[in-house]
């Protein structure tokens, strides 16, 4: 039986560098099939989910979603039962990110890309792919990949500038600025360039990204459960699993259910 060819996706916003990485990979790994080359984070997520490559090369700084956010989205939305891709980050200069990669033992390549270094990375990736294909249960290697991603996200979270915890949310509706005590907020949900702030009675919109907001929330009280959702832990009444294995949260004071991504499902275990 002939083994299927390994496939890859390249996400890099600078066209020259993308083309060069592509040709270097072809030289070093002739069997590798590059399925697509994309120029921003959103396209990377979309193409990764559509094409399901074995490898994804992600530039850290891209327009729209950065490489790490794209990796998180891929990890969360990857279809159940399929093997997660191996991630390789590409960066020019980013001390914090490099520390995070070392910490999570995730592969990275520095720009300008050095052939020897890329060759070593290819050898490591080939070995990892062979190990995954030889494994009896794909879910085992997926669990390891998710753990790696989790520790990467935790490590990049540490690099965020520390801020004192917020006590009130100031949200404008028309010309009025509403002061919402933080204790009344049941959950935050990212919506395009805004965050929806949900209390028991109503919702507010604030113009800030979840990434900026997160460091200002007390992590013991507010739990991230999805790349776009942060919930107040004592607002949760129950965690349920539906028939497809997805976890959802029932809230005490609101009717809607909140989805928990597989990156955060480990938070909801019986004591």
């Amino acid at each position, binding site marked *: 039986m002939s083994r299927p060819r390994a496939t890859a996706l390249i996400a890099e916003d600078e066209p*020259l560098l993308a083309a060069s990485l592509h040709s270097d990979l072809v030289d070093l790994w002739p069997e590798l099939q590059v399925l697509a080359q994309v120029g921003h984070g959103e396209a990377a997520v979309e193409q990764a989910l559509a094409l399901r490559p074995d490898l994804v090369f992600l530039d*850290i700084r891209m327009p729209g979603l950065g490489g790490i*956010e794209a990796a998180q989205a891929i990890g969360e939305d990857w279809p159940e039962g399929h093997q997660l891709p191996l991630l390789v980050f590409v960066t020019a*200069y980013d001390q914090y990110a490099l520390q995070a990669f070392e910490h999570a033992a995730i592969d990275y390549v520095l*720009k*300008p890309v050095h052939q020897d270094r890329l060759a070593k990375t290819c050898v490591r990736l080939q070995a990892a792919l062979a190990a995954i294909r030889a494994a009896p249960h794909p879910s085992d290697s997926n669990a390891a990949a998710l753990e790696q991603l989790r520790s990467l996200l935790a490590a990049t979270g540490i690099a965020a500038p520390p801020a004192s915890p917020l006590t009130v949310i100031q949200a404008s509706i028309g010309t009025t600025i509403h002061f919402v005590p933080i204790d009344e907020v049941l959950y935050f949900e990212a919506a395009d360039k805004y965050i929806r702030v949900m209390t028991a009675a109503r919702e507010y919109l604030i113009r800030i990204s979840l990434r900026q907001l997160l460091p200002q929330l007390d992590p013991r009280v507010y739990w991230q459960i999805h790349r776009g959702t942060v919930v107040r832990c004592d607002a949760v009444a129950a965690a349920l699993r539906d028939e497809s294995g997805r976890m959802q949260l029932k809230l005490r004071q609101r009717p809607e259910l909140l989805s928990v991504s597989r990156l955060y499902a480990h938070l909801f275990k019986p004591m």
Partner: protein
Amino acid sequence: MHPPSQNDYKTLLKRAAASLVFSVLFGATLALVREQNLWYSILYSLCIGLICWFCIDVGRLVVARALPAPPGVAPNRNWPGWLWMIVLIVVGSAFAYSSGTLLGDWLTGSRSSNLFSAGSLRESLTLLLFAFVPAVIVTYFFYSRGVLADRIAAAEAAQRLAAESRLKLLEAQLEPHMLFNTLANLRVLITRDPVRAQAMLDQLIAFLRATLGASRLGAHSLRAEFDRLADYLALVQVRMADRLTVVLELPEALAAIKIPPLLLQPLVENCVKHGLEPAIAGGRIEIKATREGEDLLLSVRDTGVGLAAGSSPPTGADPAGGQFGLAQVRERLGTLYGAQASLSLASAPDADGGTLVVVRLPLKVR
């Protein structure tokens, strides 16, 4: 009050050694002048001198530690002020003279006249001068050495601070991410398109030369400023390709006006880094010079993601965002032109969006 540090003890010991040497020299000089026994004279001088050192210098440390430092004196100097020192010197030298003489008598087994056995008050005071005058001289010597050491330390600290801020400025101008990305592109071009690679290298050289020389040069023409910005943007354009459109407008009548070198560079960099690079479709950057009455207006505008969204940097980017660049330009304007110059940052007023920065400079510096 806190216990003396190891450094304080070191200073004490050094001064004790200096007092010892001084006492030997003083005793020898006195013996030669008064034609007395050299060894006896040195012995008495040592006894008096070392007790004197003990009373004054240890006394200084104790008093300085017990009292708050006088105004204008660093607490770690251990200097209680001249008033206290004069008290210490008068009391200390009187005590040192009388007890030092007794100690000398005891060691040599002889008996010399002391303060109290001297015939008159005048004689007593004359004798006392032999301890008092050297004590004042030595104390002043130590004091001026301390002041000098402080000045040297302060000068060194100021120099270190200046070097650090220069380094920080340079690091901000030669943004490492931009530099490594440019080099990565250059590396690719060398094999694919050597002619373009050479052109890119020339632009990089011009950009580096301008950046490294900017702090030394007092002013350059607006033409030179626009040329350097064009070099920088050409480098960015290699990386962003058709995602970046550049518009530079410099009327010929304004080209010769002198401005501080690379004044606009941080503003242009902000546009690229926080406005256009994060925008998926990229956009346009417009740099224009216009004249308004007696003022020169320099505007830098992009059609990028705009102020609210652009403030969210990707993972690991500098947390200060574009604040450092803006603060730096404001500071330069303030130093050079005072209230005559200004900088405004706002969302661009038309439908294309993005941000608009306007720098206003006086054409004639008052």
